[in-house]
C-alpha cells in the first residue's frame, strides 16, 4: 500500500492540470432496500457495526486513502442519525479530506439521490460513486487513469464499473455475498460492458443476447464469475443522464441496462477488474456475514480491526486470528475460538464458548453460554446457559437465562428474549411491529412507505425507549416469559428463500434441494433439446441435422409459441398462422413433427395460463383452445409419428412445466381422440413404445390404461365396419 500514495498524488496532479478540480466522490448512505429490516427501522444501515465499527467508516477510510479529496454523503432514511454521527466523528475535520452531507427526505432511490445532487451542482469532474456499505482496499489510481484515457478518446465513455472475480456457488447460483449470479458480456479488448443481467431467470435456463450484440462485436466474453463491486467511476454526464431519464431508479437495473440498450445516445460503460485488491458491498445479511469474515481473515488489509482503530480503543490480534480489545474480563474457563473478535470492556463468564463470532463493546456474557457464528453488537446482556447460533443480536438486547437462538435469527434493538425461550430459526424480532406495506414485494427498493415511521423514530430515538417498551410490553409474551418484542410474521413467498440471505450457513438439505432443482432443469433441457439418453423414445426426432441444431430447436419452440400467442391475441386467421409456422419450419430447418409438437405445446401452455379455478374449468379451456385451432394443428398431423410426438410432448408437459395437466391426461387424450386430432394407432404405438421404458415413464401409460384398453377393444368393431 506504499505505492498508491505517491501515484495517486500524481494522478490528482494530472487531473488538476486538466480540469482543476479535486477528485470527488458521492457516497450514498442509504441502500433504498429493506433487506436489513427490522434493524434498519431504527438505525440506518451505514451505521450498523461491521466488526465493531460502523460500515460508513470503512467506506470513508478507503475513499480517503484512495486519494479522494471531497466526499458528498447523501443521507435519506435516518438522515439525522447519519449526520449526527459524522459530526461527532473525526471525519469533518480531516486536513485534505472534506466530507459534506446532503440531506433529502423524499428520495426513494439511488436515481432520486443523484438527481438531488445534480441540482446542487457540486460535482465538477469525474467522481466515484459508491454506497455507504462498501468495503474495499483497492487503489483507484489505475481505474481512474483508464477512465480518463478512455474519456479523452471517446467522450461517450461515461462510466467505469469495478468488478472482481469471485466464483458463484454452482448449486444455488449465488455468490458468496448472497446476491444472484451476474451475467456480463464484456468486450475482451476494449473492456466495454455489453450486457449485464443480475436477475437471470433460472427456471427457463436461458439467457437472451441480442442478435445485434453478436453482429456488432467480433468477440465478446460472457462471464458469470464476476462480482459487481458497486464502485463506479463516473463522468459528470452520468448525473445529467439521471436527470434526463427521470424514471431511472436503480443504478444497475435501470441505469446500466438503460444505457446498454439505448444505442441512440451511444453512451458506453466499461469495466475495470481488480485482482489482488478487495472490494465488496454489503447487500444483505449473508454478505454482512461474508464480508465480516473477510475482514477478520484480513483480505481487506489494512482495513482490519487491529490496524484501523476506528474508536479510541485499541484492538490486538492474537494467535489464531483472535482480535481482542482492551479491558476484557474473561473467565479462565471461558474459551474464545479462532477468528473471533471481542470488543472493549466485555465480560465473559465461566465455561462460556465463543466460536467464530464478533462480540461488541460492553457486553455481559454469563456462564455456560455457547455462541457460534454470531454477530453480537454493543451492550448486549446474555445470561447463563444461553445458546446462540448464527444470529445477529443488536445493541441492548437481553437474553434471559436458558434462552436460545436457532440459526438465522435477527434480534433488533433492545429486544428481550424470555427465560428458556427458543427463538425459531430465521425469525426476525423487533420491538416495532412489522410495517404494513401496501403492495410491496421483494422487488421493492423504495423505502418510502417507512419514511413516516423512521422519521418519528429519529425523534424518539433516545428518550422514548421507556414508552416503547411500555406500549409493547403486553403482547410480548411472543418471546416467552418476560420477553419483549414481536416476532415478525413471515411474508408470503418473499421469505421462502430466506436462507439465501441470512447469516446462517446454508444447510446441506438446502444445497441438495438446489442441486436437485438444477438437475431437474438440466433434465428438462435435455429432454426438450437433445436426444434422449435411451434413444428409442422419439424415433422421429432422431434426425441427422437435429444433432447440430440443438439450440436452434429451443429458439424454434419459442418462436412458434410467440407466433401462436400473437395469433390468439390479434385474431389472426388459421391459415395465416399455418403460413407463419411453415415459414418458421423452413427457416429453422424443421420437420412437421417439430411443428406439431411446438404448436401443441404453445396451445396447452396458453390454455393453462388462462385463468381457471378447477380442473373442469381447465379441461374446458383446453377443449376450447383445441377446437379453435384444431385445423392448424391437424395440418401437421398427417403422419402417425407426428401424432406420437404430440403425445410425448403432452406427457412431458404433464411431468415438467404444467403439472396441472397430470390428472387430466387421459381425459384430454380422449378428447383429442374424439376430435380426430390423434388417431388410435398413434396412441397404441405410443403405448407400445412405452412398454420398454422405465417405470417412472409409464405413469401416464398406466393412467390411460383403461382408455387404451377400450381403444384396443373398439378397433375390431371399427375395422369390421370399415371392412
Amino acid at each position, binding site marked *: 500500500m506504499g505505492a498508491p500514495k505517491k501515484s495517486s498524488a500524481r494522478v490528482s496532479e494530472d487531473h488538476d492540470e486538466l480540469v482543476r478540480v479535486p477528485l470527488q466522490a458521492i457516497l450514498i448512505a442509504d441502500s433504498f432496500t429493506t433487506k436489513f429490516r427490522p434493524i434498519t427501522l431504527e438505525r440506518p444501515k451505514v451505521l450498523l457495526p461491521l466488526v465493531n465499527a460502523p460500515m460508513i467508516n470503512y467506506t470513508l477510510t478507503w475513499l480517503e486513502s484512495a486519494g479522494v479529496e471531497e466526499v458528498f454523503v447523501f443521507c435519506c432514511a435516518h438522515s439525522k442519525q447519519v449526520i449526527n454521527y459524522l459530526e461527532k466523528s473525526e471525519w469533518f475535520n480531516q*486536513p485534505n479530506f472534506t466530507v459534506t452531507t446532503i440531506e433529502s427526505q423524499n428520495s426513494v432511490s439511488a436515481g432520486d439521490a443523484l438527481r438531488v445532487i445534480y441540482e446542487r451542482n457540486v460535482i465538477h469532474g469525474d467522481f466515484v460513486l459508491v454506497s455507504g456499505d462498501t468495503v474495499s482496499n483497492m487503489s483507484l489510481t489505475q481505474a481512474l487513469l483508464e477512465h480518463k484515457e478512455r474519456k479523452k478518446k471517446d467522450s461517450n465513455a461515461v462510466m467505469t464499473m469495478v468488478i472482481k*472475480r469471485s466464483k458463484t456457488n454452482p448449486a444455488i447460483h449465488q455468490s458468496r455475498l448472497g446476491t444472484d449470479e451476474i451475467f456480463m458480456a464484456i468486450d475482451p479488448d476494449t473492456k466495454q460492458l455489453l450486457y449485464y443481467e443480475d436477475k437471470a431467470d433460472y427456471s427457463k435456463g436461458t439467457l437472451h443476447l441480442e442478435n445485434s450484440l453478436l453482429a456488432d462485436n467480433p468477440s465478446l466474453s460472457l462471464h458469470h*464469475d464476476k462480482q459487481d463491486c458497486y464502485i463506479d467511476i463516473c463522468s459528470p454526464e452520468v448525473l445529467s443522464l439521471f436527470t434526463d431519464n427521470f424514471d431511472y431508479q436503480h443504478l444497475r437495473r435501470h441505469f446500466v441496462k438503460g444505457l446498454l440498450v439505448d444505442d441512440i445516445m451511444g453512451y458506453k460503460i466499461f469495466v475495470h477488474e481488480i485482482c489482488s485488491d*478487495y472490494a465488496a458491498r454489503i447487500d444483505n445479511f449473508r454478505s454482512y456475514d*461474508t464480508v465480516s469474515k473477510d475482514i477478520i*481473515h484480513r483480505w481487506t488489509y*489494512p482495513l482490519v480491526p487491529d490496524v484501523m482503530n476506528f474508536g479510541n480503543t485499541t484492538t490486538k490480534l492474537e494467535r489464531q486470528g483472535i482480535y481482542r480489545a482492551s479491558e476484557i474480563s474473561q473467565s479462565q474457563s471461558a474459551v474464545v475460538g479462532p477468528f473471533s473478535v471481542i470488543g472493549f470492556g466485555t465480560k465473559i463468564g465461566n465455561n462460556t464458548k465463543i466460536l467464530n463470532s464478533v462480540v461488541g463493546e460492553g457486553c455481559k456474557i454469563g456462564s455456560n453460554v455457547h455462541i457460534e457464528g454470531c454477530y453480537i453488537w454493543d451492550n448486549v446482556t446474555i445470561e447463563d446457559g444461553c445458546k446462540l447460533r448464527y444470529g445477529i443480536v443488536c445493541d441492548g438486547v437481553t437474553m434471559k437465562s436458558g434462552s436460545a437462538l436457532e440459526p438465522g435469527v435477527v434480534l433488533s434493538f433492545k429486544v428481550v428474549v424470555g427465560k428458556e425461550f427458543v427463538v425459531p430459526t430465521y425469525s426476525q424480532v423487533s420491538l416495532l411491529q412489522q410495517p404494513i406495506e401496501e403492495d410491496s414485494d421483494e422487488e421493492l427498493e423504495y423505502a418510502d412507505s417507512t419514511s413516516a415511521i423512521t422519521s418519528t423514530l429519529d425523534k424518539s430515538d433516545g428518550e422514548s425507549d421507556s414508552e416503547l417498551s411500555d406500549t409493547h410490553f403486553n403482547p410480548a409474551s411472543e418471546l416467552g416469559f418476560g420477553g419483549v418484542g414481536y416476532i415478525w410474521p413471515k411474508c408470503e413467498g418473499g421469505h421462502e428463500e430466506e436462507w439465501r440471505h441470512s447469516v446462517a*450457513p446454508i444447510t446441506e438439505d438446502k444445497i441438495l434441494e438446489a442441486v436437485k432443482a438444477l438437475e431437474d432443469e438440466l433434465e428438462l433441457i435435455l429432454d426438450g433439446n437433445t436426444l434422449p439418453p435411451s434413444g428409442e423414445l422419439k424415433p422421429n426426432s432422431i434426425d441427422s441435422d437435429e444433432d447440430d441444431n440443438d439450440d436452434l430447436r429451443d429458439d424454434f419452440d419459442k418462436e412458434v409459441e410467440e407466433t401462436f400467442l400473437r395469433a390468439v391475441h390479434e385474431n389472426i386467421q388459421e391459415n395465416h398462422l399455418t403460413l407463419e409456422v411453415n415459414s418458421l419450419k423452413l427457416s429453422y430447418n424443421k420437420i412437421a413433427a417439430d411443428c406439431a409438437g411446438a404448436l401443441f405445446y404453445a396451445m396447452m401452455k396458453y390454455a393453462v395460463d388462462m385463468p381457471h379455478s378447477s380442473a373442469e374449468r381447465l379441461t374446458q379451456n383446453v377443449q376450447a383452445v383445441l377446437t379453435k385451432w384444431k385445423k392448424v394443428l391437424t395440418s401437421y398431423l398427417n403422419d402417425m409419428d407426428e401424432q406420437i410426438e404430440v403425445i410425448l410432448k403432452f406427457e412431458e408437459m404433464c411431468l415438467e412445466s404444467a403439472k396441472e395437466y397430470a390428472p387430466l391426461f387421459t381425459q384430454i387424450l380422449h378428447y383429442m381422440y374424439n376430435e380426430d386430432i390423434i388417431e388410435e394407432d398413434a396412441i397404441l404405438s405410443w403405448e407400445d413404445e412405452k412398454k420398454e421404458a422405465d417405470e417412472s415413464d409409464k405413469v401416464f401409460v398406466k393412467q390411460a390404461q383403461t382408455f387404451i384398453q377400450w381403444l384396443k377393444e373398439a378397433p375390431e368393431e371399427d375395422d369390421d365396419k370399415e371392412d
Partner: protein
Amino acid sequence: MPDVHILVNEFVNQLKKRKIEGSQATAKQTAELLRSVISQQRVPQTNQATALINAVRAVGEKLIAANPVELAVGNIARRVLHIIREEDLSLATAAIADLELSAVSDDEDDVERDDYPVLSAAAVAAAARSTLRPPSLQTLLEDAPISAAIPHTSSSGGDSEGKSRSVDKGSRGRKLKHDVIEAVNELIQDISTCYEQIAEQAVEHIHQNEVILTLGSSKTVLEFLCAAKEKKRSFKVFVAEGAPRYQGHLLAKELAARGLQTTVITDSAVFAMISRVNMVIVGAHAVMANGGVIAPVGLNMVALAAQRHAVPFVVLAGSHKLCPLYPHNPEVLLNELRSPSELLDFGEFSDCMDSASGGGSLHVVNPTFDYVPPKLVSLFITDTGGHNPSYMYRLIADYYSADDLVVKRRPVTGS
C-alpha cells in the same frame, strides 16, 4: 501550535494506513516531526527539559500507537528523549560547575586556591554525569574531551558570574531547545547517511570471488554490495526472491543493472544453495536489545540453513533500527499479518473460503516478519562498525536512557 497538531495527525494517519514503508523513511519522518514539535513547544522558565520531554512523549505515544509494528518510530522517539536528557544534563553540569565555581570563589577566595576551582568543577561535572546516567563505554571513552570542554565554559562564566547568572537562566531555555534541535538534526543526518556509513565497511567483509546470499530486498544490502563492487571486488550474489512480496526480484534487477553477477533462486532453494555460499548478508526490520533480529519473513529459515553449514550470517542495520526492548515481551514481538491476497487469488479460491454457503474453510496467514534469535547471527554491521550480538545491549545503552524505555506509561500526565 495548531499546525504541529495537524502535522502529527497527518503522520499518525499515514502510519495507520501503512502508507509509509521501510524503517529508514519512517525514522527520518518521525525525527523531522519531533524536531518541529520541539521547535514549536513553548518552554517555561523552569523545568524546560521536563516540558520538552512531556511534549515529545505525548507525540511519541500517539505515533507508536498508530503503528506499533514499526519499531523505528518508538526508537526515534526514545532517541529524541535521550537527546533532550543529555543536552539538559550537559547544561546542568555547566550550571553546577558555575555554581561550584562561584561558591568556591565566594568562600575560599581568601584561602588562595586559585588553581583548584577549575579542576573541582570538572570533577563535579563528571560526578554528576556518572550519577545521572548509566555508564557506557562511549561516555567513558569520550569523558575526557567533554569534561575538558566544560571547565572552559564555566571558567568564562566564572569571571562575571554575579550579574550574568540571571541572564544565563533566561537564555538557558532557549539554549536547551537550540541544542536539542541541533542534536536532532544530527540524528536526522545520521539516519540519512547510515547507508553510506555501513557501505563503507563493505570491503572489509566481502572478499574476492566470494558468493553472497541475500533474501528479499533491502536498500542497505544493495548499497553494501554495490560499494564492494565499486572497490573492484568481484563476487557473485544469490538473491532469494522473498515470497510473497517478491522484492528479491527488484533487488536482483538493480544488482544486475549495476554489473554484479546475480542469480535469483526461490526461497525454498536456499538450503540447497547454502553450501556454495560464503556469507549471508541481509537487512533487518529491527534489532532487539538481546541481539535478536526482527526481519522479513523467511530469514529465520535462511539463518538456520547458514548455521547448519557454518556460513556467517551478517545483518546490516542502521542505528535507528536498534530497539531497546527485549523480544520476549509479547507487546514488542508484534507481527504484521498482511492481506492473504498476496498469496492467493481471491477469485480462484473464493468458493472454498470460510463463508456460509457450505464448502470447506480455507485460512491464509501471511506474516510479514520473522524473529531470528541472537545465536544465529554472526555479526551486526551498523553505522558505527561491526558488533557481536551480545554487544548490542551496550550499544543500545549509548543511544537510549533507561527512563524512556516505556514511552507509554508516563509518570507525569501533563502537557
